[in-house]
């Protein structure tokens, strides 16, 4: 490879290349994160098992795995793949643009993200290893180097990595926002924007707000660690026999970190799931040959979820030492978000209701998204009640709740997107037969892994425990009872992870031997399938692009189903079209 071709192919400012690079980064990260989770599951039920090339898994190794698993999955998979990955690949075309607003910044934010991942992983190799304080990094554990292994240089690397990631995510989000606001083609009004674009838009807004607060928090924590400040350290804090207040009279509080962190941390979960909402809405409509039910309501609920998402961080702090009245207030804002979330589910159900959809793999994963989102979302109102959180907080019930949404629904959204846009990006179809196997095995594995965690949580199993057997006192008796069910969960997790090999095989195989795709194989109505915007042909490159209606307009004609893409001019007025092109025929 010559230097010029290296620059063109790797250090490209083309949003397609950057999108693929983001997806490859996320794929690397998900492999690492999944491997760590499997090691944790295995250690939990067979604590004597020795990790090859490493030996026994010590409690600090376990906590380091927890920390890296959470950090890698949250940031480098769930924030990166849906938002930056598919956002770069698909977003510009969906609004009729051939580029992102700031191509050079776009490339820069990708490379910053890649550096952030390398910095994070390098913490494994420094003295003390990776940090052990979980992805939430509560001080003083994270503020004092002697508080545990990994809390010295490992913790500094963690902070550096997340700071780099935050800067990259902020830049990338500003790019997304400007692209959507400035580069929409003729006729692409806000109400005609695909719901995927609304998902990326709202997630980008949240990113800009949330990551700036996280960056501030990281800066303060860094000062506490190295500049003798006491933002998060109370006077007289004694860790490991050493008093840790450098500045006389300084009296900070770890609760400040909790506020700043969760002000970021809760919107972060919506950043991860909002693009999935959009993909699901569009795909369900596409494969049902129908309009999205309640299109304006869907736009409104997307924005409302974003708004409420930054008003409910305190529900992570019901038992953290907040004023109990504050817990009541946060309980109400948390319950409130159940309403727009329910509205989304109702719309998805209504969109598919008696539509006789086409069950392509992408459709199956969208339906799986709906199912898993219902399963994981419904326990939200339970955890929103402070009195129940007093029992369930930091148990596996919570782990089950957010893994069903984050680990499973969000990933189902990513799979749906991959199966759906694979022909657009590669010109080849993925195997439907392998796809169906992949879907059913994954769905069964997901429920078998995460449903029983509700039970071990209700029985009192706490998170972050390196071991359940061999613990003294009454606690040991209580935890030992839960080993058999945990063994079942571990088997299920291994099954779930193994099933993903079907997907990897499908990708590799289809890249070379998949059936050649037609120009618009799903009868999609959104602009990324417009011949002039097609990422692989440039024949119709100069053609002007204009939009004439909302996406997902399907109609009945004597010759069978037909569809009206957004770009096809039509004499009917927009409102008439909507009424006429409602359903497909009997």
């Amino acid at each position, binding site marked *: 490879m010559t230097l010029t071709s290296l620059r063109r192919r790797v250090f490209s400012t083309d949003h397609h290349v950057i999108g693929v690079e983001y997806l490859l980064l996320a794929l690397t990260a998900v492999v690492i994160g999944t491997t760590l989770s499997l090691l944790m599951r295995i250690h939990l039920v067979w604590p004597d098992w020795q990790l090859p090339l490493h030996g026994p898994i010590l409690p600090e190794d376990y906590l380091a795995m927890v920390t890296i698993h959470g950090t890698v999955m949250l940031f480098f998979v769930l924030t990166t793949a849906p938002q930056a990955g598919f956002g770069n690949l698909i977003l510009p075309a969906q609004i009729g643009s051939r580029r992102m607003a700031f191509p050079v910044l776009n490339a820069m934010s990708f490379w910053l993200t890649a550096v952030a991942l390398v910095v994070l992983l390098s913490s494994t190799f420094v003295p003390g290893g990776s940090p052990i304080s979980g992805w939430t990094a509560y001080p003083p*554990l994270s503020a004092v180097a002697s508080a545990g292994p990994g809390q010295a240089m490992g913790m500094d690397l963690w902070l550096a990595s997340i700071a780099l990631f935050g800067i990259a995510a902020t830049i990338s989000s500003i790019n997304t926002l400007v692209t959507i606001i400035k580069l929409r083609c003729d006729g692409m009004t806000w109400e005609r924007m695909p719901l995927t674009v609304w998902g990326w838009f709202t997630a980008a807004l949240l990113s800009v707000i949330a990551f700036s607060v996280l960056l501030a928090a990281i800066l303060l924590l860094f000062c506490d660690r190295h500049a003798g400040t006491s933002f998060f350290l109370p006077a007289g804090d004694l860790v490991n026999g050493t008093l840790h207040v450098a500045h006389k009279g300084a009296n900070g509080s770890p609760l400040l970190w909790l506020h700043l962190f969760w002000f970021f941390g809760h919107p972060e979960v919506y950043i991860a799931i909002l693009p999935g909402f959009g993909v699901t809405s569009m795909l369900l409509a596409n494969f049902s040959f129908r309009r999205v039910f309640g299109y304006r309501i869907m736009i409104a609920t997307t924005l409302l979820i974003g708004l409420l998402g930054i008003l409910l961080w305190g529900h992570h702090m019901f038992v953290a030492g907040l004023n109990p009245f504050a817990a009541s207030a946060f309980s109400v804002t948390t319950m409130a978000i159940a309403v727009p979330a329910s509205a989304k589910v109702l719309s998805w159900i209504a969109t598919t209701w008696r539509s006789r959809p086409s069950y392509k793999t992408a459709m199956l994963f969208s339906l799986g998204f709906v199912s898993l989102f219902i399963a994981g979302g419904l326990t939200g109102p339970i955890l929103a009640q402070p009195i129940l959180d007093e029992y369930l907080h930091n148990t596996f019930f919570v782990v089950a709740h957010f893994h069903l949404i984050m680990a499973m629904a969000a990933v189902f959204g990513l799979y749906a997107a991959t199966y759906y846009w694979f022909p657009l990006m590669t010109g080849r179809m993925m195997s439907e037969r392998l796809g169906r196997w992949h879907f059913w095995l994954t769905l069964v594995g997901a429920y078998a892994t995460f449903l029983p965690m509700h039970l071990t949580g209700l029985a009192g199993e706490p998170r972050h425990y390196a071991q359940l057997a061999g613990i003294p006192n009454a606690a040991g008796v209580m935890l030992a009872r839960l080993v058999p069910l945990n063994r079942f969960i571990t088997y299920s997790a291994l099954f779930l992870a193994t099933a993903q090999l079907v997907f990897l095989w499908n990708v590799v195989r289809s890249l070379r031997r998949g059936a050649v795709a037609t120009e618009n194989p799903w009868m999609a109505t959104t602009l990324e399938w417009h011949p002039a915007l097609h990422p692989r042909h440039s024949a119709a490159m100069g053609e002007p692009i204009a939009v004439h209606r909302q996406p997902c307009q399907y109609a009945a004609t004597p010759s069978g189903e037909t569809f009206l893409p957004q770009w096809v001019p039509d004499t009917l007025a927009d409102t008439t079209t909507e009424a006429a092109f409602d359903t497909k025929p009997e």
Partner: protein
Amino acid sequence: MSIVSALHAARLPVDASAHGPALDRQLLLSLWIVLALFTLAHVILLGGLAARRHHPQKSVWQIEYLPLVALAALFAVLTIRAERLWAATRYTGASLTALQVEVTGVQFAWYFRYPGVDGTFGRVRPELVAPGEGNPLGLDPADSHSADDVVSSQLMLPVGREVDLAIRSQDVIHGFSVPEMRLKQNAVPGETIHIHFTPTKTGTYAILCTQVCGLGHYRMNANLRVVTPEEFDSWLAAREKAVQR
């Protein structure tokens, strides 16, 4: 062990506190509602997919707003019920006659302090902390109130009497949790947080740490022993006598 017995082992632990039964009722009510909604949503979703005849979409009111109003009302009822329980246990402090106990979290142990015969906790100073010399909390000998304080590594409580716990931490954030008492509260360095409850059944219960606090997090636990008032009085008297000498 079969999956049936594995499932059987995983159930709510014994409920042994006065506020617990109401909490359990709210928990079970919420769980049943959630299970019903999960089933209902899937029946409608799969039913709609299975229905053979193609059907035009109904109005927004029938399938969006009406169910939303119903769901919002349901969530509101749950919220209000839960708020009443939360308010009852957390909005006000313990009664003046409650037994005073201080809980301190330290990497990786729980310590429990009783105020002794004078009924007042003495001063602790972090620079005096010396676990090796039997002073893990740093009791200040210069303070006369400290002299009679009893420090224990298990929490001993009389059944049926309200207890006022003052929860604090010496180093990092810990999570004070007693599942059988339906109790959880983080111990935050720099703060003293009060919670109160009344144990209703004698027995030995698990005290866990539920906030990741370092490499010993998983083995940071202690026993709560709920005994008869007589047993408790004689235990405390013996401990107080031992301290006086």
